[in-house]
């Protein structure tokens, strides 16, 4: 049985991670090799399974592997069981494939870091967790992977945690992810309470019978989860800071794989969203807002990684938008996810390469004219650039165009709004990505003399090149004969064509999109080629620019709404605990002591007052008798 192999997908990197972590410094020499090998073997297993799946007829492609009964209490039965179907294999290949490339890249990129072994251990851990996320056959299994990737992400963002800001960034990411996790766990609870099961298959079966309210509640909770993990509005703030991690991490986790888990979750839960229109509407709203938000933020970033991060956020907004459009959009969401995985990972690696050559400088205003020094990086980065802004025939064109088209066709005013947002986003994307290209590779050199820009070694540029090839070809491959759409059909509900009348014909949409992209590029060229670029960000800019530079005040808002009230609450509760609750306890004690020392004064030491006391006591008793014999 081939399904017995599924567990090895996860087990290999997990085991490798454990070995690397436990073996200590002894493993420093070969740790990175083991890590890469583990990832590659996992990819190998994945590829083999993929071929096996291809060999099966469509209906029999999905396979499950039950490992053991995990939690079994009353009617709450959860097996540790893995599900490999058409949707998860896409992710498996993306994760292990891109993952392996990034492992290879990291061997060189991290070669000077004393803790490279630990880095690889974390990467392996991440791969394992991410695979568990996409392979789990129930929400609870998914949850384990879900938090696992969060943990790996935390560890990797904080890899250089001796720098306090990095450590803070890691913490921020984890906490905001936990907000999302809250949604996921509530979704699971609601599902169990209403349907008595938490497995995908079980819920899919029960969903039609469940009330819309229940499903909407689950849907909203899942959306919160997705928003947390995928840095969607309003839980987007952590992603920019997450760039504190080493660049390969940004490429793998915060561009290609982990952040797209939200898209996976929504796609996987299609049976819930399809039956919960309100939740679906919320999904598209979140997607649309985020894609614009990310794009706008991206226009003002001088930090190359943050600019790419903003772009990631925006692109995932596209995916979420697509996933929110229902059965017509799931495949495109996944497609964009995959193509994005290639080009964004490639670009991040490119950015890493630039930083590698520039003494880890990240400020693009200190770059300029690097094309000559880093030709390979320039080319691979450029291919990714073309893909992301959606120039045909690069991968991004296919996937993004589909999403814009689907959005426009969503029907009515909703369609027009979503479509316009998507189109406007495309223009913005073109603008800021062009800006990145121009600032980094063209123009005049703005770097100091200490920097000696140079091309990266082969171990670094090879993965970049492979990813660049992916960014060029993948879109074409996926859309040829609607390959991906058909591949995914058994998982996401069948595609019902012609449900909505098309608002605009596809060719017009493509044209419109390209025009907007061109406008974006032109503005960028006008702003950054025609005019000299200052090596420090100009201060005399409009208020709007300032706001955009502050990420549209996301951190300010978070601070004002959550952090400060939270801190105030904490402080006041600490005080209340000490003063009021503990104070009451101590008060009782003090009262006892106080009344004790007051009563003690009756013991004056005078015999006569003692006899008076006896007399008073006797009088009181006589009084009592007097009263009761009345």
């Amino acid at each position, binding site marked *: 049985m081939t399904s017995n192999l599924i567990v090895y997908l996860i087990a290999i990197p997990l085991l490798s991670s454990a070995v690397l972590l436990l073996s200590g410094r002894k493993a420093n020499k070969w740790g990175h090799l083991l890590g890469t090998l583990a990832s590659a073997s996992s990819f190998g297993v994945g590829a083999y399974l993929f071929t096996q799946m291809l060999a099966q007829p469509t209906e029999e492609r999905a396979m499950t592997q039950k490992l053991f009964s995990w939690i079994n209490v009353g009617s709450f039965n959860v097996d540790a069981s893995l599900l490999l179907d058409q949707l998860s294999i896409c992710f498996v290949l993306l994760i292990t494939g891109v993952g392996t490339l990034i492992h290879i890249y990291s061997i060189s990129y991290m070669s000077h870091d004393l803790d490279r072994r630990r880095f690889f251990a974390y990467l392996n851990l991440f791969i394992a967790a991410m695979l568990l996320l996409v392979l789990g056959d129930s929400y609870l299994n998914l949850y384990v992977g879900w938090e696992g990737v969060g943990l790996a992400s935390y560890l990797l963002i904080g890899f250089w945690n001796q720098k306090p800001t990095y450590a803070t960034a890691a913490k921020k990411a984890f906490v905001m992810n936990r907000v999302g996790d809250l949604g996921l766990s509530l979704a699971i609870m609601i599902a169990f309470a209403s349907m008595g099961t938490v497995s995908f298959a079980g819920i899919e079966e029960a969903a039609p019978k469940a009330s819309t309210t229940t499903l909407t509640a689950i849907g909203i909770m899942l959306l919160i989860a997705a928003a947390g993990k995928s840095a969607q509005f309003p839980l987007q703030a952590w992603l920019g800071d997450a760039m504190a991690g080493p660049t390969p991490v940004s490429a793998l986790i915060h561009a290609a794989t982990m952040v797209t888990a939200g898209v996976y979750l929504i796609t996987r839960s299609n049976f819930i969203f399809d039956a919960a229109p309100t939740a679906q509407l919320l999904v598209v709203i979140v997607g649309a807002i985020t894609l614009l938000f990310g794009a706008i933020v991206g226009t003002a970033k001088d930090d190359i990684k943050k600019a790419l991060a903003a772009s990631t956020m925006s692109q995932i907004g596209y995916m979420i938008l697509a996933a929110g459009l229902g059965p017509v959009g799931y495949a495109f969401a996944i497609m964009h996810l995959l193509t994005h995985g290639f080009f964004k990972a490639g670009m991040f690696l490119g950015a890493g390469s630039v930083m590698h050559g520039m003494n880890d400088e990240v400020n693009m205003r200190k770059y300029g004219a690097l094309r000559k020094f880093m030709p390979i990086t320039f080319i691979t980065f450029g291919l990714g650039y073309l893909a992301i802004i959606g120039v045909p025939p690069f991968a991004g064109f296919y996937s993004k165009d589909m999403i814009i088209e689907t959005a426009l066709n969503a029907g009515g005013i909703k369609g027009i709004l979503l479509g316009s947002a998507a189109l406007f986003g495309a223009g913005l994307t073109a603008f800021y990505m062009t800006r990145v290209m121009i600032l980094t590779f063209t123009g005049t050199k703005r770097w100091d003399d200490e920097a000696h820009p140079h091309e990266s070694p082969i171990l670094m540029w090879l993965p970049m090149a492979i990813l660049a090839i992916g960014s060029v070809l993948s879109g074409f491959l996926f859309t040829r004969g609607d390959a991906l759409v058909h591949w995914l059909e058994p998982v996401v509900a069948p595609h019902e064509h012609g449900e909505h009348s098309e608002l605009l014909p596809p060719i017009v949409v493509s044209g419109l999109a390209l025009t907007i992209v061109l406008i974006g590029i032109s503005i960028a060229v006008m702003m950054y080629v025609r005019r000299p670029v200052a090596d420090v960000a100009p201060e005399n800019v409009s208020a709007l620019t300032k706001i955009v530079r502050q990420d549209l005040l996301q951190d300010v808002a978070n601070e004002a709404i959550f952090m400060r009230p939270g801190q105030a609450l904490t402080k006041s509760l600490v005080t209340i605990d000490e003063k009021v609750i503990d104070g009451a306890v101590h008060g009782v004690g003090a009262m006892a002591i106080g009344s004790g020392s007051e009563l003690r004064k009756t013991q*004056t030491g*005078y015999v*006569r*007052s003692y006899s*008076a006391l006896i*007399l*008073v006591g*006797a*009088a009181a008793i*006589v*009084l009592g*008798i*007097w009263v009761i*014999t009345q």
Partner: protein
Amino acid sequence: MINYALDLGQTAKPEAVLFYILAPLAVAAAIGMLTVKKAVHSAILLAWVMVTLAIFYIAQDAAFLGIVQIVVYTGAVMMLFLFILMLVGVDSSESLTETIKGLRWIAITASVGFGGLLISLLGRATLGRSTAGLADANSNGNVEGLAQLIFSDYVWPFEVISALLITAAVGAMVLAHHERTVKRVTQREQSQARFRSGSLAAAAGLPGPGVFALHNAVDVPALLPDGSPAPSSISATLKARGDMLDSAQYQLDNNDNAAEDK
């Protein structure tokens, strides 16, 4: 008198007269006991109360007790009190101002309350029977009746009470008896010691009790009531030799000051 519920039957007229004369006197004496300054007076007043009670005992057919009350109580016990009073200082009088804050009020309130309620309660009480009288019980004589009881029914407490008497004796001895650890100094030895002490002043001995002298040397004249030295109180020889000390320094007010300075 107020018509109380407690009706125990009427007594003979003479007894009533006796009671109405003696009872107020007894109460007055008792109250007097609390208000006189001198302990001795208190003791005398208490003795009067006891005698009154003895009379009442006899009036109530308890002749033996009445006699015992006078002989033992008033005679022996009160004598003991008086002895001790002598020992402690028969003239010592006690200020009746209250020193413990609030005690007087508490005492008055409690006692008025206690006494008032007690009497009021007694007035409310009924026994459901009238006075039986002791004619039957005393038919063989009061003393015989008591003896019969003491030596039969109450022989055990009577025996035990001997323990009390022994305790009292042992106790008094423990507290008062001096175990001589060194031989007692005889008067002879004392006098020898005085003269051998080297100072003649010591030889004279201290003035006897009741003598208001501040100095007992032969060279100091006694003082007349106006404070001047009495010329006849000192030997002419000393006067002639000029060994006489100036008695002014022993003037009462000077001496007070000197004492304070010390």
